[in-house]
């Protein structure tokens, strides 16, 4: 208690001369930390976390909803929102437990909270907002995201009654959710550069949020991984998964309304950052910086030829030209 008092007093009186004393005295810096938790800077940190997640959701929703035709039957209903609970942020694709930061960023209470609503979505049109709590779907209470997804799948392709609560009041909304490509896309928050996937889900690291100069570039990077997931579900083995993912990814991004004309320059820029991706490799995937380890690298075996970005660029350019030409007609 005494240390806290001294800290607060020192902070209040602190002119520039105090700065070094403040920094070098462990007691005071602890008090500083306590005071700073409620500072506006603290909320900036959390706001940026929310923004990055919202950007990933918005861009990926555009891909999976407007590009749904390319996914054939592989579709799921999508509410066009980011939802969260006090358990839904635990370890993801080998990354960290983000639950603490999510609890702070979104002030999560019990139940399913709406964290973000994609602007063009069906529920946005019904004025559902961040902060609302999703209480019921199809007349049943839902407490976890798994329950919600099951319920939405059962009620697909028909109008669904939702009940949201806002400030204690209940709001009834009836809406039919679109069927979109059934590939979840999440912001993983780690420092890797390239988007990645595990066969079912796509992850977008901070490095890509930072490297993608526009939503078009982010869309191209995410679409490539969605394409990998789709290719992985093909019942026949695909002879060249990378080149196929390149082509399907570009077609998907273009179908969804993204401008893919900058794709070759984008991949070139990324390739110059990660030149190990340029050549073909066989036997072992060479020195891939691990997306899951901070500063770590791992080698993992691959049984088939991995075609490097170098040899894929002509086909990428050809696909882009084809898309640009057909959009002019």
């Amino acid at each position, binding site marked *: 208690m005494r240390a806290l008092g001294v800290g607060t007093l020192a902070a209040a009186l602190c002119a*520039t*001369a*105090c*700065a*070094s*004393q403040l*920094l*070098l*005295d462990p007691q005071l*810096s*602890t008090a*500083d*930390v306590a005071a*700073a938790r409620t500072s506006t*800077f*603290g909320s900036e*940190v959390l706001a*940026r976390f929310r923004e990055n997640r919202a950007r990933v959701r918005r861009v990926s929703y555009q891909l999976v909803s407007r590009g749904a035709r*390319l*996914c*054939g*039957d*592989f579709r799921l209903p999508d509410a066009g929102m980011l939802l969260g609970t006090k358990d839904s942020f635990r370890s993801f694709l080998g*990354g960290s*437990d*983000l639950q*603490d*930061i*999510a609890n702070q960023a979104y002030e999560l209470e019990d139940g399913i909270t709406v964290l973000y609503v994609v602007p063009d979505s069906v529920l946005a049109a019904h004025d559902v907002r961040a902060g609302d709590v999703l209480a019921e779907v199809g007349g049943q209470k839902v407490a976890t995201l798994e329950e919600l997804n099951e319920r939405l799948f059962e009620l697909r392709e028909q109008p669904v009654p939702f009940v949201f609560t806002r400030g204690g009041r209940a709001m009834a909304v009836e809406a039919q959710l679109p069927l979109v490509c059934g590939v979840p896309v999440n912001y993983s928050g780690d*420092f*890797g*550069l390239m988007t990645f996937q595990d066969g079912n889900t796509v992850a977008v690291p*901070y*490095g890509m949020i*930072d490297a993608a100069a526009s939503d078009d570039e982010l869309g191209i990077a995410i679409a490539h991984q969605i394409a990998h997931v*789709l290719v992985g579900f*093909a*019942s026949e083995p695909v002879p*060249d998964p990378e*080149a196929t993912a390149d*082509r*399907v990814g570009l077609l998907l991004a273009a179908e969804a309304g993204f401008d893919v004309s900058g794709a070759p320059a984008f991949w070139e820029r990324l*390739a*110059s*950052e990660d*030149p*190990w991706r340029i*050549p*073909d490799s066989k036997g072992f995937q060479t*020195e891939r*910086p691990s997306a899951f380890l*901070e*500063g770590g690298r791992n080698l993992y075996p691959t049984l088939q*030829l991995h075609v*490097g970005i*170098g*040899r894929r*660029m*002509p*086909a990428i350019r050809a696909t882009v030209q084809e898309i640009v030409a057909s959009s002019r007609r």
Partner: protein
Amino acid sequence: MMSKACRSRLCRVLSSTFIATSLALGCAQPSAPTDEELALYEKGLDRWLERTAQLQTISQRIRVAGKDLCGAEISPVLGVVLIRVPELPRSLREAGKRRFGPEDSVRVIGVLEGFPAQRAGLRAGDEILGVDGNRVVSTPHVYGGDATAAPKLALRIVRGGETTEVSVENRLGCSYAAQLVDSEEINAYADGTRVVFFNGLLRAFVRDEPIALVMGHEIGHNIQTNTTGQRSGGVVGEARADYIGAYLAERAGYRLTRGDFGLAEIEFASPRRLVAKATTHPTGPARVLAFQRTLAEIASKRESGEALMPNVAAGPLR
């Protein structure tokens, strides 16, 4: 998760696409690099060399500016940017050989304005064979050698095929040289002897000022380690490294603003740093508040004409 019927329908959607792709690619076998690949490697090499030059410029300016804080851990700082093909990232070595030749010698690719090498006429293309009588076999030998009291150093170089000797001023600075490693991670660390920067950090930060702040921070850790004799971790160690780092960067001529606290950017980006219970990089907000106060302290010293000396009355640096 998906029904067989679903898969086959999906397969029809895909098969038309990958037939087109297979026709475009022919048989995918590893073969000689295409022109496209070679062009990409050249771009990758350009980018690596740019980053090397940026890192070494910042490093050597700060090392000289911080000399009085480094005690006995000093070495000559010549102001050269070097390359050695075997030290390039593996995927760029072939491109490096095409550009610089097959030998594994230490080559100059740039010189820093106003530093001893530039003043002595050293230039891009020179190969360095020896410094002060010591044979040079790798770039760290040149970036940080043994400190002597001699006012000048003799450099043995090869220029245009001929071996010659150049005399350079023996300008001393902190011995904590910088090394660039090929990793997309956004990170940097100090190990008591040098500082290591990951390529990803230079990619993410872009500008000199936030990189200079991290350089000062990491050198600040090395200063603490070698002065107190123990690993300078924890809340206090990090706070001191921030504090010393700001002073070092400002002394070297990098004018910092609040936005340069790139470490804070990384706090924004990686919520993992905020939740980490470990003491490595503690809560962001306090550090940024402290950084703002440090900038104000430095600004007031500039205004009053005082030397930019970090307040060390508490004793950790002596």
